């Protein structure tokens, strides 16, 4: 039973008891009421009693429903946005590493922005992958529901934090997708052996493995926060499975990410 339901039950019980008591007293004593004139003092005394009864009842209601009344005026409202138009940003290697004057790209990421557009603090915010489905390239046949039950909450603001506070008019970021590549090298390997396939991670899961080296992944994410209904965010990721050293080439030939509503 939630706090709201408990408060409602208490309020209903009190009301029923009061009404029941009045009805019982009325029928038990069967009072004979006769109209009688009252003096001015008595009239004002009755008015004051009515006003004080009203305020007492209001105070009880406010005490019982203060959280709900507060939430009507002070609330947090979260909005999820993509940071880049095409959903992909580059992570460069150290600035001293360059090829033909261009920085070396170490990984690609999809970063989402969660903005609090309300006027109250959003507490205990968590972001988690809740469902992941792999489909073949033609996007018709469902191939596999990937088990996400062991997935942890995603980290906020490129830190180790799985929970965060978002102040009103502030924002936090969360990385939901990453493409990296493993490397190896020996003294005679020249530019290095890039034989290992690039790795696509969605919501912390390495997804391109076994038969799922390329295709379409539908990922459902859920944003949760205290006193806010969970918010769902769905992404469709189409990937051909190869690494490109420039974002332009990657977006043109390899990957397409879009939000599904």
């Amino acid at each position, binding site marked *: 039973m939630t706090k709201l339901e408990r408060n409602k039950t208490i309020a209903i019980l009190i009301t029923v008891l009061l009404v029941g008591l009045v009805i019982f007293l009325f029928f038990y004593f069967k009072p004979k009421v006769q109209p009688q004139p009252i003096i001015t003092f008595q009239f004002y005394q009755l008015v004051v009693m009515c006003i004080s009864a009203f305020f007492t009842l209001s105070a009880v209601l406010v005490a019982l429903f203060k959280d709900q009344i507060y939430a009507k005026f002070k609330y947090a409202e979260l909005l999820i946005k993509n940071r880049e138009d095409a959903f992909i940003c580059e992570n460069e*290697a150290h600035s001293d590493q360059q090829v033909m004057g261009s920085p070396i790209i170490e990984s690609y990421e999809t970063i989402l922005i969660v903005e609090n557009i309300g006027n109250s603090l959003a507490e205990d915010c968590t972001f988690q992958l809740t469902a992941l489905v792999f489909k073949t390239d033609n996007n018709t046949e469902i191939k596999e529901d990937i088990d996400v039950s062991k997935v942890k909450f995603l980290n906020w603001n490129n830190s180790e934090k799985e929970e965060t506070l978002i102040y009103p008019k502030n924002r936090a970021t969360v990385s939901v997708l990453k493409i990296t590549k*493993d490397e190896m*090298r020996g*003294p005679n390997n020249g530019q290095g052996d890039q034989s290992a396939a690039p*790795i696509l991670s969605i919501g912390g899961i*390495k997804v391109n*493995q076994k038969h799922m080296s390329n295709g379409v992944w539908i990922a459902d994410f859920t944003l949760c926060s205290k006193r806010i209904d969970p918010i769902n965010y769905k992404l469709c990721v189409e990937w051909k499975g190869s690494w490109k050293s420039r974002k332009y080439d990657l977006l043109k030939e390899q990957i397409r990410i879009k939000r599904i509503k």
Partner: protein
Amino acid sequence: MIMPTKQQAEIITDITSHMEKSGGIDGWFVGVTDKPKEQLFEVCNVDKENAWWIYRTAEDSPTATKVKVALLNNGFKLDSFEKDGITEAKIIYAYRKS
């Protein structure tokens, strides 16, 4: 004996073949990390251009640990620079100390 999964076997094969190209297992160390480049080139001081090194990403942290144990059983030595307690570490790295 527990058989490695396909993914574990692939990583073990990749790392072992790379080690064999170097001429033998002498001087090869293995560890698990979440930041392979930082671990190899800054913590372990591996020469990026002129040394033998490799890293491969496993599906998850337990898989990475299983691969590391398998490599240790195959004759690799445990890297003394490996940091303990990184819960999200799923990248297996290996290098030859020159």
